[in-house]
């Protein structure tokens, strides 16, 4: 498993009798930027807590950076930077003092360079100006930045960022993306969880999708997109007529903004034939497009729509 930054097999966590994470086989290649996606309550943070040895699995095995967790935590964790379930700091200490305190807990972090490393980390997340302020006075976004700085105190082989863009403004979100990209360029594997696909889709090379404690898909982004076929979008005021024409070809059309949309199975007739048929039936065709399904659609397809937290 040397090529995997993170590998789990049959990873399961039960609280009382309920499985919050159920039989997870995760494979995060080294050097990847790995998006860990899923709606709220799908078990992402519980998985991350197990990866980092904060909670012990009910069943299954974990390997992080080629070593077994949690047994080898003392040698693995110094190489892992993490932001878990939001930033957390002592409110009565300054940003700098908080990072210094956290750094002293890592026995592999040299004391001689501590201050310089803390300053560099603060600079990297754009917090140098607020370094001396008490964390109590920080905004949510500033705390989030400080949390990311805390993951960057030493050179890491793996970064685990749980919802890193929480509380950040669009500018901050873009900065996080840039940061993740530059860290990946340096050779760090980045494992980033989010319930908002759009925020990380642009930086990820790989992704896994969780639903109700189970992994429903994982692989490279291209693999995931391939999982669902292309779609045809018809822009027309005659939506119901268009739908019935498409139905004749075995396509299950659904209403979309400005017309209808349908998944295009592999055995569907060529697109030009569909367009001709639509025009032939008198559908006022204003637009016609075939496009690869976006990851967003795939995500919704796999995790279901709506805001209900699944139990």
């Amino acid at each position, binding site marked *: 498993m*040397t*090529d995997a930054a993170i590998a789990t097999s049959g990873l399961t966590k039960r609280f009382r009798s309920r499985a919050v994470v159920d039989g997870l086989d995760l494979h995060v*290649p*080294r*050097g990847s930027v790995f998006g860990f996606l899923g709606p709220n309550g799908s078990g992402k943070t519980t998985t991350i*807590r197990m990866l*980092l*040895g*904060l*909670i*012990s699995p009910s069943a299954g095995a974990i390997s992080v950076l*080629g070593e077994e967790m949690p047994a080898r*935590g*003392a040698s693995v*964790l*110094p*190489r*892992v930077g*993490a932001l*878990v*379930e*939001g*930033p*957390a*700091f*002592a*409110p*009565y*200490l300054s940003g700098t*003092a908080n990072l*210094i*305190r*956290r*750094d*002293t*807990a*890592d*026995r*592999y*972090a*040299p*004391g*001689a*360079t501590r201050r*310089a*490393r803390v300053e*560099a980390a603060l600079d990297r997340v754009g917090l140098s100006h607020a370094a001396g302020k008490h964390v109590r006075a920080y905004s949510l976004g500033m705390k989030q930045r400080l949390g990311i700085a*805390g993951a960057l105190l*030493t*050179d890491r*082989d793996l970064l685990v960022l749980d919802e890193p863009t929480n509380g950040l403004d669009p500018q901050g979100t873009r900065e996080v993306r840039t940061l993740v990209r530059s860290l990946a*360029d*340096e*050779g*760090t594997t980045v494992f980033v969880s989010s319930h908002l696909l759009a925020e990380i889709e642009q930086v990820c090379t790989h992704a896994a999708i969780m639903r109700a404690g189970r992994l429903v898909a994982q692989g490279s982004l291209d693999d995931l997109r391939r999982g669902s076929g292309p779609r045809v979008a018809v822009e027309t005021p005659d939506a119901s007529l268009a739908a019935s024409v498409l139905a004749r070809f075995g396509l299950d059309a659904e209403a979309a903004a400005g017309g209808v949309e349908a998944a295009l199975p592999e055995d569907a007739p060529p697109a030009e034939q569909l367009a001709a048929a639509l025009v032939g039936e008198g559908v006022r065709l204003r637009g016609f497009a075939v496009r690869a399904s976006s990851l967003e659609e795939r995500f919704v397809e796999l995790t279901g729509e709506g805001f209900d937290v699944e139990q």
Partner: protein
Amino acid sequence: MSSSELTAAAPVKRTSVAARRERPSGGWALLGSEISVMFRRWRTYAMFGALAAVPILIAVAVRITGGSSRGPAFLSDISSNGLFVAFTALVVCVPLFLPLTIGVVAGDTIAGEASHGTLRYLVIAPAGRLRLLAVKYAGCAVFCVAAALVVAVAGALIGMLLFPIGPVTLLSGVQVSLGEAYLRMLLIALYIVVSLLGLCTIGLFLSTLTDVPVGAMAATAVLAVIAQVLDQLPQLDALHPWLFSHYWLGFGDFLRDPISWDSFGQNALLQLGYIAVFGALAIGRFTTKDILS
């Protein structure tokens, strides 16, 4: 060599040098940080202030009223020798005020970090759960030393300020020089520190049980009171030598000549027992705990 190993060996660009040690350090930095953070909190100084207020109030009250023969031990000696302010204040603080402050500090150790969410970051740093417990306990012990010294030193200073001081007449009637009296005061402070170490361990254990620091603080302080109440009930005679508070006020032995170390020894042994039992419980609980805060 397989292709996967090649991937793993891919060179990693690093921005800075000396960002990571080859071997782990001794880990004293965390203890240093723990102590320095404790002494940077207003709460710590508020408690020191409250403790220092005890000898000051005693001294001022005696100065104004001229003292009385009733009240805690040594109270009547104050007006003739200011040093007794410190002794009186220690007697007054041991049953309640010191255990209260210890309850706050010991109850906060793990639960406080948990409530701020910083516990998870210390654990994944990784501080090592055992080491974290040891550091927290050591910090607590340092607080005990500081707290006992605050009472003793504040007592000695205010005593010096408001009353004449001089050679001290011990309980056994022998008079000792001022220098030796100070030494004996430090010995008493040491006795008190040792007395409180068992309670510290209980607080540490309670703190591993919850993410709500106030709960652990209150429970620790309440236990200290309960132990002393039980110690007063003659029906529970058999239980008394096992109560962690049983020898708390035994430091009068240090004001005899020659010094009797009996109660100090028994007290130290008893406290060691509490440290062993509750230390083991804390370790057992914390090293296997799922950290969900």
